[in-house]
Structures are given as C-alpha cells and as structure tokens.
C-alpha cells in the first residue's frame, strides 16, 4: 500500500498575532539560553584551567560578536524568566482572560527589554572590560 501524504498540523497557517509571536519567542529565547549555558560552562572550565586560559576566554568573550551574543543571551534570560512566570500562572489557571493575557504579554515584552538594558549596565560595571 502506498504511503499517503499525512496532513501537517497547521502551525504555519495561523495568523501572525501577539500570542503566537510571544509563544515562538519563548522557544527562540530558550534555544539562545542553551547556547548561554554552554558559554557559562566555557567560562568556568577556562577559569579552572588556570590564569592563561582564563585570560584567553575573557578576551574571547569581550570580542564584539561575543558581546552581541551575550546581550542576546541576557535579554533571552529576562524574557524567558518573565514569560515563564506567565506560563506558570496559566498552569494554575490564572490570567486566561483575553484582556489579561494580552496585557501580561505586553508587560512581559516591555519589561524584559527594560530589565535587560538595566542588567547590561549593572553587569558591565561589574565585569569591567568583559561585558
């Protein structure tokens, strides 16, 4: 018997709305954070290997492309954390009303950007030349 083309779930056909934009952003930021986890391990391993390899790791992390990635990881963390709390609230049944869900979506989007900017400058001061 010939295999029939199975229908796909219609995930590519939905209208582009705030809700599915925020939802896909949760996944994208999660993927970026996985890269961030690997960078954290890189930093720790370099430190454990001694001063020379630590210096090399710091200058690598201070390069412009790495700084862009680190900024992305920082914002991803802010977004994933705030939107994650939003998801946990839904899991216990809070905030499902359309108006509330839309409002919390906007709050998460704007607050994550604001938090990322603040944290960037706070960490920048602490890290000196690194971040």
């Amino acid at each position: 018997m010939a295999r029939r083309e199975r229908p796909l779930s219609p995930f590519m056909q939905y209208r582009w709305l705030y809700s599915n934009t925020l939802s896909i952003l949760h996944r994208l930021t999660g993927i970026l954070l996985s890269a961030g986890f690997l960078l954290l391990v890189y930093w720790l391993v370099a430190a454990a290997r001694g001063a020379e390899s630590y210096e090399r790791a710091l200058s690598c992390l201070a390069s412009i492309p790495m700084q862009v990635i680190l900024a992305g990881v920082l914002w991803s963390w802010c977004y994933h954390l705030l939107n994650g709390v939003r998801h946990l609230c839904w899991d216990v049944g809070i905030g499902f009303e359309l108006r509330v869900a839309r409002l919390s979506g906007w709050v998460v989007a704007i607050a994550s950007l604001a938090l990322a900017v603040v944290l960037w400058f706070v960490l920048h001061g602490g890290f000196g030349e690194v971040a």
Partner: protein
Amino acid sequence: MSLTSPLGRVLGLGSAKEGSRHWYAQRLSAIALAILGIWFVVALAGLDGVDLDRVRTWLSAPLTTTLLLLMIGTLAWHTILGLQVVIEDYVGSRGLRVALLIAMKFGFVLAAVAGAIAVLRLAVGVPA
C-alpha cells in the same frame, strides 16, 4: 515486583508513554531555575569584576558552590527537556530526530559534568 495490574500500569500514560512526567519536570525545573537564576545574576552583579582571584574566592564559599552546582544540574535538565520538545516538533525524519535527540542529551550532560567539575576544582583550589 509491582503489584499494579498491567492495565493500571499503562492507564493515564498516553501516546508519549510517560504520562505527565515531562510536563511536570519542565515546570519543577522552571521554578527552581527562576530562583537559582535570579540568585546567579544578583551574585554576578555584586562580584565587582571577574578576575580569577575574585571568582575563586566567590566560588569557594560553600553556599556559592552548592547553589552553582544545583544551577548547573537544573539548567542542563531544563535545557534537555526544552530542546527535546523543539526537536520532536520540528525535525520530521525519524532517523535524524532520534540522532539529534541522543546527541543533544549527550552534549548537555557532558557540558553539565564538565561545568560541575570546574566549579569543584575552583572551589577547593586544585592547582590548574
């Protein structure tokens, strides 16, 4: 030996064959990471520079060592659960999907163990 009947053992497990275990673990690790993540960012902000001596001193405090090890483990766990869903959702070919899942899980467990050993070495001051 389990006294559960064969029917009782499979009831509620669904097509994923593990019931709500994945869903629950993802939420549990999310709550833990919200706490550990905020601790980590606040601690980093308070570190005032990341030169090696300062990082060593910071890491050798027992509370820092404990929380950082917990964070590495939970982070790897949550990452694996999350990337698993992404791969299962978007990779169509069965062979590639299974290969990617295995490689991803191996990779993040490897990273977690490497990170944990680095923390321990820094914490107890093993010479590089």
